[in-house]
């Protein structure tokens, strides 16, 4: 009997998603099934040996890397399995918090479908079909974003519209790129195909000026859902983007292209940072911070010749932890406070100190505060940016200050009651079940911040899936 990696990591999760959808009224059961499946798939991907053959009595199961489907092929090589382990692991993490108040019931099944679609996108051949699979993930995500009565329709429409516009750009770019290999270097078609490809990715990654949907969706959506989507989709798109660099020599050898990517990355960091700093709504600030993080990813790709791709990959797990904690604490606070406007959360830090500390430190971790998870990678990235050009480095650093400034404002509001002359007292209203995940995650963030090599080195092995980029 033959089994294939796509059956395990694409078809099986879809089946689990269907089961979860059928059991959606039984929240605990579907939560256990979905998260067990996600973590199980993550562990399997992390520890599965190459060319695995299982012998169960007379039955011999051979695990192959490819699966033919409607005349196309999905190939999930062993080299990409660490990334698949990572995506399912993070999906499992978000699934664990899917029981929070307000999380759409469909989130469990939909998150598994999204992860499965994105996994398939990484291995589909011809690889242009990945654009369709990514579009599928986008379409599937709409029901969990558009919660009735939340006023989220406009943002979701914008999201859907811009992500859909990206698809033809990628398809056209792919079509153009097939002919580029045989063209002379001075052919204008090379530049044109790169521009079309760039536009497609810019739309996908919500690069300025295509970013407007991010704060809109982020403001109206549930923090758990938003943090998951704004993590998993850009992360997979970025890894998918490495395919293009790996396949096309003219892309990976062009200093101009890397320079443009760097510039766009810095622009995103600065714009996102400045915008974050002036926000009065906690969920909108999260949206703008996501733009900053996209900027850092682009900056890392722009520094590929100096080892930037390693930083890109190492940033993924620390970002996942930060986003998860951010989403979790926002969800809890929103449930308690009703609104996440700065003016509405005044004094809540004294009632919900651990959740508030979790929110503050999640933001600080994403921003790159020393001792927390992102710091070792961000300081390396930024110092290399200075080597490339002082302006680039300094501007990137300035951009990171936005989230720090916002966090200090947040702290002031959390600890500041309306009457300034009042003596302050603490009223702890948190339950252990609410703050235990926060404490565990904070420990994880500090551990990642102190021992980045131990926790994130596994991610760099993903580069073996892209032999030209090592």
């Amino acid at each position, binding site marked *: 009997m033959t089994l294939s990696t796509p059956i395990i990591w694409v078809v099986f999760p879809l089946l689990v998603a269907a089961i979860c959808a059928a059991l959606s009224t039984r929240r605990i059961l579907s939560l256990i099934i979905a998260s067990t499946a996600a973590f199980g798939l993550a562990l399997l991907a992390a520890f599965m040996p190459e060319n695995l053959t299982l012998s169960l009595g007379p039955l011999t199961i051979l695990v192959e890397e490819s699966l033919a489907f409607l005349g196309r092929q999905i190939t999930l090589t062993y080299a990409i399995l660490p990334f698949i382990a990572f995506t399912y692991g993070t999906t499992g993490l978000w699934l664990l918090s899917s029981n929070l108040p307000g999380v759409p019931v469909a989130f469990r099944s939909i998150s598994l479908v999204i992860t499965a679609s994105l996994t398939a996108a990484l291995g589909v051949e011809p690889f242009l079909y990945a654009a369709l699979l990514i579009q599928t993930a986008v379409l599937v995500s709409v029901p969990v974003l558009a919660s009735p009565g939340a006023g989220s329709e406009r943002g979701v429409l914008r999201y859907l*519209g811009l992500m859909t516009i990206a698809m033809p750009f990628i398809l056209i770019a792919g079509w153009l790129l097939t002919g580029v290999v045989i063209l002379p270097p001075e052919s204008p078609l090379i530049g044109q195909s790169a521009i079309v490809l760039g536009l497609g990715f810019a739309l996908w990654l919500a690069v300025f000026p295509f970013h407007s949907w991010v*704060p809109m969706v982020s403001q109206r959506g549930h923090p758990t859902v938003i943090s998951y989507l704004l993590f998993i989709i850009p992360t997979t798109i970025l890894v998918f983007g490495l395919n293009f660099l790996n396949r096309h020599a003219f892309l990976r050898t062009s200093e101009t292209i890397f320079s443009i990517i760097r510039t766009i990355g810095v622009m995103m960091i600065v714009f996102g940072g400045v915008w974050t700093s*002036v926000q009065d709504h906690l969920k909108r600030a999260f949206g703008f911070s996501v733009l900053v993080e996209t900027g850092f990813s682009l900056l890392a790709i722009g520094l590929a010749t100096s*080892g930037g791709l390693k930083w890109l990959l190492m940033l993924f797990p620390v970002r996942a932890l930060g986003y998860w904690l951010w989403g979790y604490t926002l969800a809890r606070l929103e449930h308690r406070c009703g609104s996440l406007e700065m003016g509405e959360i005044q004094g809540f830090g004294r009632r919900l100190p651990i959740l508030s500390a979790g929110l503050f430190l999640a933001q600080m971790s994403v921003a790159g505060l*020393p*001792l927390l998870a992102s710091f070792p990678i961000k*300081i390396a990235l930024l110092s290399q940016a200075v080597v490339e050009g002082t302006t680039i480095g300094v501007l990137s650093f300035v951009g990171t200050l936005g989230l720090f400034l916002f966090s200090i404002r947040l702290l002031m509001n959390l600890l500041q009651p309306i009457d300034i002359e009042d003596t*302050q007292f603490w009223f702890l209203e948190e339950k252990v079940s609410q703050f235990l995940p926060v404490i565990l995650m904070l420990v994880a963030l500090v551990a990642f911040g102190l021992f980045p090599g131990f926790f994130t080195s596994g991610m760099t092995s993903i580069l073996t899936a892209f032999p030209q980029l090592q």
Partner: protein
Amino acid sequence: MLILLPVGLLLLGSLAIFVLDLTHPKFGSSWLIAVVAGIAAWVVIFYSRLQLPTLLDLGTWQAPELNLNGHFSLLLDYQSWPYALALVTILLAMVFTDAARTRYDSSPRAWSASLVVTALGLFAIQSGTSLTMMMAWVLIDVLELFHLLRLQETARFNLRMIISFGVRMASILLLFFGTMLGWASAGDFDLTQIPTRAGFIFLVAAGLRLGVFPLNMPFLQEPVLRRGAGNIIRMTPVAASLSLLARLPADLITPELKPWLPLMMGLLTLAALYAASRWLSAVDEVNGRPYWIVAWASLAVASVLNGVPQSSIPWGIALILPGSLLFLYYPRIQRINFLLLLGLIGILGLPYTQAASGWAGLVGNGFSVWTFLLIIAHGMMVLGYLEQALKPGGEAGALESWARLVYPLGLILIIQAMVALGLVGWPGAFTPGVWWLGLISNALIVAVLLLIRRFGVIAPYFQLPTSSRIRTVSDWVLPRIEPVFRLEWLYRVAWRLYHSLGKILKLFSSIMEGEGGILWTALILVLLIALFTGMGVN
């Protein structure tokens, strides 16, 4: 491992007190543990003077497969040892003198917190790399914030506290920025070889943290926890910043920065004079503590700007030790008031005393108007100290018998540490120094003392009588010009600019997110393409 031993001893002591307080709260046993931990740490640090410099590598992030930079180490050398000794000394003095403050703010929890803060402070002082220092600063600041938030203070105070935390964060980010620049120019480095490009940023980081560069004083009043643990919590971040100053390169001011030097010295002198005048007019020593810190720290920073970072150490020690002598002296007891006068050894700057080697930092490359103004600031600091030291005390009868013994012992410990540091604290500590500067300053002090005597003012009350016309004028003018000196107007302007920027950006966001957002997106895209094409991108 000798470096880590005091840190470990203090943490162990703290843990023991904490557990004891949770299970069987006993004041005496907790105090004894704090004393034993403090003495053990003090002895180890004192002994380690014989083995300077001592380096301990704690680990590295460097690995070829990770492409990361940076390593962690602890370094006890002539720059960090004086601060390490001073910090443990004031901890021990705090525990001893707390015996007399059982009715006030001494408690096992406070000792436990003080031991932890001191351990972290030692970690920061002994940091061998900027990475280690950043981590230690973060830990100290978060712990301090946590500790201060637990005090049931007013919201207004809490707001200032968070602003102060924000300033500390800014200093950590500057250290981050400096490290980034340093790595870009010289690769991974340790604090004994700070690249010039990073050095100036580190100076600003330390200056900001100390509240002098630029002048910032978020705390205009002290928290309720003022004396024992309060003093440790106030002094530890200061000591951690001062130790960085001592390590900065002498050639910090590059030719590009040279034109800005007068402005920097001007701001620094302004900070020193303002803080010294406020110290002189402070109601009591604890209310004057923020100004005490700023004034001495200004002298330390000035030494670095003048290219003599080693001279920042005596001023830094003057801040910590004689300052703590005053701040820990509560309740006041008339019979031992003279001990405070012995604290003058640490600040007068007379030849062969602890502060004598500091004058070289103020004179730098030559005597200037800044030197003169800083000497005036020094004189005002000494006068202020005298005023506080000469205030009358009460009777010792109210103290328990054991407290009567250990209370002065804590103060004597500080004095003997001052003497020890003046003798063997660092190479060149036992020196006549630039003796004539000390002479000028002390002559000025004596002249002022004589002059004010003629106005009918005698120690310890150096303020003019309320009926005096000069006093009436100064009472009207000073509160009005004070905000100007504190530079709060500048921060308010910056805050308003930030709000205006916020309004503009929010307007832009609402346009982008409005009904016509997609059209605006298309327009901006076209404009960007036109811009890039215009810049020559094909």
